[in-house]
């Protein structure tokens, strides 16, 4: 298919099907797993064809699913129709897109396919997934959907981008080794080796049997971190932030800038001597989404798995320009209530942003755009009452960042609450006037 034809087809707004090879990707992994089990037993002269029935069923169901699924873009909405027995017609108003991801599992990459995932706010059951499309079509469609979501002409070419930060592999590996998971795996291996040396034999075998499972579990978590951070490139474009990463399964996401609910910068204790930081951001959405595994959805969007302070500062200046630098600390008597937290507890704000720092061992700094604050909560526990302290929570629609101004003097907290309510109101009014939805 030539470029021209493809564009014409996209323009027509007719119904499209997913790529036929997506069958192979969807059933591929399960099929390979089953075949790996079955073939050796067949070769050994067994007659256990039963698992092959599963493969056949999987192939048939996914073929049917493929046949009944189609999608189209009309009137600023993406429509997906699917289901044989239970017809489902999904409509996604493009104005409300939070972000669009392109995900490419290893097998799909081999076949030149990609999956598009639409992120909507508050979406719980029916995520907009188009799995799978030919890679080029997926990229074009993504650019087009993003253009539509900004209310622009449909076929505006994808705006050029500027790279903000990249993550070298060495630093990524180092950061994972110095993380708590990395250290536990190291410890596990250490214990295993010690046991093997000190007491080889039956006891060691049984002990190491347990330890191996433990290490495999953690190893998987490490692998996921490594894969999601590998070759990560953060770029800035007029339509938002572009993130690209992955070694085997690659992912590319575009996050419109006005969808950012909060940004969090963390500095784990072990990284501090190296001057490394972790930067992540929060967008609106439910805690867990259909079609995502737990680890994927619980995580914040890491936009910089590991970077230097200077890099983080540059990125921050791009995402949230003009962050207030001046922070005021919590009163000294807060040391009695939260001895470990006191060291980092501070906050500051201006007309656009609020900054809070907290954390016990790992220092976390949160930036919250005041126009995104959903509600303010003033909370005072019994210990705080005795010390005349109070905490103010800034609630946003994000999934994971819970920004709080901790342990302030009661009178000051009262003033903050009144003042912030007013500043948030002004920030909201400004955003409304700017016309940004």
């Amino acid at each position, binding site marked *: 298919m030539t470029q021209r034809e493809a564009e014409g087809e996209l323009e027509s707004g007719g119904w499209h099907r997913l790529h036929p090879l997506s069958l192979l990707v969807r059933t591929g992994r399960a099929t390979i797993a089953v075949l790996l089990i079955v073939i050796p037993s067949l070769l050994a002269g067994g007659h256990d064809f039963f698992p092959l029935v599963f493969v056949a069923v999987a192939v048939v169901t996914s073929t049917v699913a493929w046949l009944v699924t189609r999608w189209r873009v009309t009137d600023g909405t993406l429509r997906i129709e699917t289901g044989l027995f239970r017809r489902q017609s999904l409509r996604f108003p493009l104005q409300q897109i939070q972000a669009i991801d392109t995900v490419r599992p290893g097998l799909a990459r081999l076949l030149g396919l990609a999956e598009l995932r639409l992120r909507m*706010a508050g979406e719980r059951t029916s995520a907009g997934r188009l799995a799978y499309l030919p890679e080029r079509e997926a990229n074009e469609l993504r650019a087009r959907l993003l253009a539509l979501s900004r209310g622009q002409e449909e076929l505006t070419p994808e705006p050029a981008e500027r790279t903000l930060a990249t993550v070298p592999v060495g630093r990524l590996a180092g950061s994972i080794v110095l993380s708590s998971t990395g250290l536990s795996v190291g410890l596990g291996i250490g214990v295993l080796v010690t046991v093997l040396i000190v007491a080889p034999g039956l006891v060691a075998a049984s002990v190491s049997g347990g330890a191996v499972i433990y290490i495999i579990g953690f190893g998987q978590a490490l692998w996921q971190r490594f894969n999601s951070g590998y070759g990560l490139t953060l770029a800035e474009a007029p339509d938002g932030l572009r993130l690209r990463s992955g070694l085997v399964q690659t992912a590319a996401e575009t996050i419109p800038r006005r969808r950012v609910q909060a940004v969090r910068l963390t500095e784990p204790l072990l990284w501090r001597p190296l001057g490394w930081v972790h930067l992540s951001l929060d967008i609106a959405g439910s805690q867990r989404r259909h079609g995502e595994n737990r680890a994927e959805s619980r995580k914040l969007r890491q936009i910089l798995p590991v970077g230097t302070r200077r890099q983080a500062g540059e990125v921050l200046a791009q995402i949230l320009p003009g962050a207030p630098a001046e922070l005021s600390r919590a009163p000294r008597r807060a040391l009695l209530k939260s001895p470990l937290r006191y060291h980092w507890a501070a906050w500051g704000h201006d007309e656009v942003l609020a900054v809070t720092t907290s954390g016990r061992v790992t220092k976390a700094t949160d930036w919250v755009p005041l126009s995104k604050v959903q509600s*303010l909560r003033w909370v005072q*526990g019994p210990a705080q009452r005795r010390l005349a302290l109070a905490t103010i929570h800034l609630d946003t*629609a994000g999934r994971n960042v819970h920004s709080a101004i901790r342990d302030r003097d009661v009178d000051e907290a009262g003033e903050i609450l009144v003042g912030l*309510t007013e500043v948030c109101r002004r920030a909201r009014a400004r955003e409304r006037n700017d016309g940004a939805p």
Partner: protein
Amino acid sequence: MRRTEVGAAALLVAGLAAAFGTASDGATAGAITGGSVLGLGVVVAWFVERRVRAWGYLERAEDLLVRRGLFVRRLSVVPYGRMQFVDVTAGPVERSFKLATVRMHTAAAASDARIPGLSRPEAERLRDQLASLGEAQASGL
């Protein structure tokens, strides 16, 4: 600011429990259990009464304040424009006392503004008021 009315209900329930205690057993045993249940009921009622009296809300021009709690005190400020939806619920106990709970939902899961024990007409008035104000001042995510 209005006070909620669950306290009176709790007192009634405690009294009923005491009466039931007296009726079910013998005379002396009944008196002892009844007395202790009543005593306990009074203590619980005192706590509930205080807790309920700490619960209050205030409608302002642009936002709603909800205050609650004694042990851990909370005060939420929820702008009308941030309200995603309002619901009014009434469980069986609430229904028998003609009460209802109004709950406001924003896009943030953490901002839980709940006002229990409102009289039915007041709950409906509040719901309509919040819905219309929310629509007038709505702002996107």
